[in-house]
């Protein structure tokens, strides 16, 4: 089970940092940093730079994202910002605007 779950009705204004999985279904405006996986659910609206081991986006993210492993933007998901990750996928039906840096 995920370490932190931000439900759909919740809004956080500020920074979230930790060393466990983070799942967001609500709103975040600030910064998100973890050493584990990040999941941005379909109802989420995130205005924040995100750093994690991996990132899956099904909702809306505006900010730069950095993942040590991979970034996946699901169908219906939207990312406006730069991606820095070893691997990434942008699904059919996903929306993305930004730069990608696959550091080697």
């Amino acid at each position, binding site marked *: 089970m*995920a*370490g*932190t*779950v*931000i*439900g*759909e*009705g*919740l*809004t*956080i*204004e*500020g*920074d*979230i*940092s*930790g*060393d*466990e*999985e*983070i799942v967001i279904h*609500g*709103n975040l405006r*600030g910064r998100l940093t*973890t050493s584990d996986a990040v999941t941005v659910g379909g109802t989420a609206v995130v205005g924040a730079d995100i750093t994690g081991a991996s990132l899956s986006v099904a909702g809306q993210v505006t900010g730069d994202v950095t993942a040590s492993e991979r970034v996946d933007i699901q169908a219906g998901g939207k990312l406006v910002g730069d991606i820095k990750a070893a691997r990434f996928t942008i699904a059919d039906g996903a929306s993305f605007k930004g730069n990608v840096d696959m550091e080697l």
Partner: protein
Amino acid sequence: MAESSVIGAGTVVSGHVRGDGSLEILGRVEGDVNVTGNVIVGASGRVRGSVSGAELSIAGHVQGDLRGTLAVLLENGARVAGDISSPRVGIAPGALARGHVQTDGEPAAAARPASAARPASAGVRPADAPRDPRRGAPAPAARPSPVAAARVAPARPNPPIQPSVAKVPARAEARPEPRKPDAPKPVAAPSAAVAPPETEFVPVRPLKVEPRRPPPPVVPVLGKGVKAKKKKLHD
């Protein structure tokens, strides 16, 4: 969908958390929490900021005010430095709290049942007034005395006016209601005043009773040009 959130034990939120649903805090929050649902601060939870919700259940450490619309319960192991306000407050043995604890002004409303000691406490309340502002207790506690006095005054003139209606003088005089405010009013007024803590108590209204003025004199209306008829006493 169940709107419940969890801030995990390994997570720190630096900022405010607000919204609908319930929240369990097992990690750390440096900011205010304001949700419509219940809040649980687990034993590992640490909050530096105020917490507002429906029912708050605290087993961790909180530096900030706690406000629960339903209840605030401190479990064994809780450490709270801040003010606590809720209709129901429980502090279990083993929980430590420092600050002002208030169950929403109910002490005045609940004063009714024990009637024996009431005159003492009714007299005490106004004396308590200097302490109240410091405690943040609702000001209405000090008001009931002037209201009780004000309520008694308008009640008096009413019965004398009734008799002018002719048919009901006996009933008006015998009507016990206007008289009653004398004794129990000082007791009832505080509870009535304090019972709805949200509303501003404005004691001015009852003073608007105006029927003190005597009814306007009945003046016979004469048509224009009518001269007074002088009665001829003798022909």
